[in-house]
């Protein structure tokens, strides 16, 4: 089921989402031959300690997190992980983060040509940082500025990860496409809050967190669909995928591939079962390959009942 998405050759249509697969060295038990590719934990130019605990709480069918992009910085990533990635037989994209447009460009330049780096996923959608992050993803001009700054500093494939916290995701998607993105990833987590009734404080120390898991899936499918309709470049669907049928919703909605995230926390082998289920669906329905998968049957415009 190999396929090319946004100038990256994926082994299967199911990737591991950023922040849920570490640097690829942590997740146990998974048969990596089924992994389409992975996106590494979000990195900044400089090391970041992350946010204080509590960082993670479970909510109904979901999980709130505010890790604050804890990470060792790009120098350590290049030293400790990129040489390992060069040995692996699946592509690794690096999720990049910054507080300014110029820093995004600088980070892209540092990663350009690095061994084992198959592409960049530009994170303009992290809800858990006080500077930058999601702010870039909420404004079409800023989203384009970041995408363009990255595009100019690297020959690597440039994917842009979109936030759901927008009025019109199609506008942001088109702005990123016009600025040179090779693919879009839709969507990052939704901002949420959960309150501890004992202390009357937010249960996440940062105050708010990013909501992921099955709770967000219908909203994510809708947003990914809106984005896919708006652009010619491929869209990678993300949001609460736990099973193959969840993934197929995104694919039928117009996505070229998907990323599995939170599900891996509970089931380290979740990606395997998603890939197997997609293969089964494709062959059971007699499609030659994924490209032959029919797209969404849009509702008739006159679907409203006659009076």
């Amino acid at each position, binding site marked *: 089921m190999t396929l090319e998405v946004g100038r990256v050759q994926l082994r299967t249509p199911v990737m591991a989402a950023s922040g*849920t697969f*570490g640097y690829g060295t*942590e997740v146990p038990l998974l048969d990596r031959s089924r992994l389409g590719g992975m996106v590494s934990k979000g990195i900044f130019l400089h090391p970041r300690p992350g946010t*204080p*605990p*509590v*960082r993670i709480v*479970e909510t109904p*069918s979901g999980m709130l997190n505010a890790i604050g992009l804890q990470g060792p910085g790009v120098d350590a990533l290049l030293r400790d992980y990129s040489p390992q990635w060069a040995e692996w037989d699946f592509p690794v994209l690096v999720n990049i983060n910054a507080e300014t447009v110029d820093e995004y460009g600088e980070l892209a330049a540092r990663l350009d040509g690095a061994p084992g780096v198959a592409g960049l996923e530009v994170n303009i959608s992290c809800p858990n940082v006080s500077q930058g992050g999601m702010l870039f993803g909420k404004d079409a001009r800023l989203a384009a500025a970041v995408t363009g700054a990255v595009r100019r500093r690297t020959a690597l494939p440039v994917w842009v990860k979109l936030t759901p916290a927008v009025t019109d995701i199609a506008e942001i998607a088109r702005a990123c496409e016009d600025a040179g993105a090779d693919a879009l990833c839709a969507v990052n987590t939704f901002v949420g809050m959960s309150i501890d009734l004992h202390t009357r404080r937010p249960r996440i120390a940062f105050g708010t967190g990013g909501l992921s898991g099955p709770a967000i899936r219908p909203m994510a499918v809708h947003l990914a669909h809106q984005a896919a309709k708006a652009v010619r470049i491929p869209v990678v669907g993300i949001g609460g995928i736990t099973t193959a049928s969840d993934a197929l919703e995104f694919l039928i909605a117009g996505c070229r591939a998907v990323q599995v995230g939170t599900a891996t*926390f509970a089931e380290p082998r979740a990606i395997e079962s998603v890939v197997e289920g997609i293969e089964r669906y494709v062959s059971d329905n007699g499609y030659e390959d994924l490209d032959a998968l029919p797209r969404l049957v849009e509702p008739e415009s006159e679907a409203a009942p006659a009076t």
Partner: protein
Amino acid sequence: MHDVTAPLLRRRRLTAEMWVLGFQSPEIAAEVTAGQFVNLLLRPGPLLRRPFSVYRVDGETVEVVLKAVGEGTRQLLDLTPGDTLSMLGPLGRGFTFDPAWKEVALVSGGLGVAPMPLAARDAAAAGLRVCWVHGARTADDLCQEWTGDEVRWATDDGSRGLRGSVVDATPADVPQVLACGPNPMLAALAGRWPTAQVAIETYMGCGTGVCLGCAVPRARGGYDRACTEGPVYEAGSIRWAALPGHLHYEVASR
């Protein structure tokens, strides 16, 4: 690390609120050491796994101790023998034992008793004399099961043993302390025994080092992962003020 489909074999009551569940999990039973944990997943059930220190090991049986504090633990207590769950483990770095100590105090408060039976086993294997110190709110809340050469009790209301904290009940001259319990108890213990080994409880996402959710603030700055670098730490190396005093789990996962 193993992902074992583990059937519930037996259940017994420890206190009014605490239960022991024993699961058949031979691979994990054979490998687990004191202070390590398993991460349990129920399907259908909550989205995430729930981490538990291993309590006792008996042949192929791995025991965990729990209270019904939220939806996940309530569902675990509803299991009947033969029901299975996914048990991932053993996880984390446990206690270490040095025969040169000669003696060790195993100090626990409430549910913090969880890693102590294995600690007593491993301490005895290292030739150490074991002083078992356990405290709770009242005599009814004390876990009566203990292992070692000597036992000391502490209760908040004085209904059994010392009226006061387990820290006060611990022999002042004991050469080393291994402890588990609420963070304020461990913080108090750290003041007296900075080189004590303490097992820290946190919320966890994955339990395998990926999500960075179980952050433990270190005195040298930055955060560790309780699931990977921990859950056992030297008491003096923790920035206690940055940890929550109590964990509250009461979120229905529906």
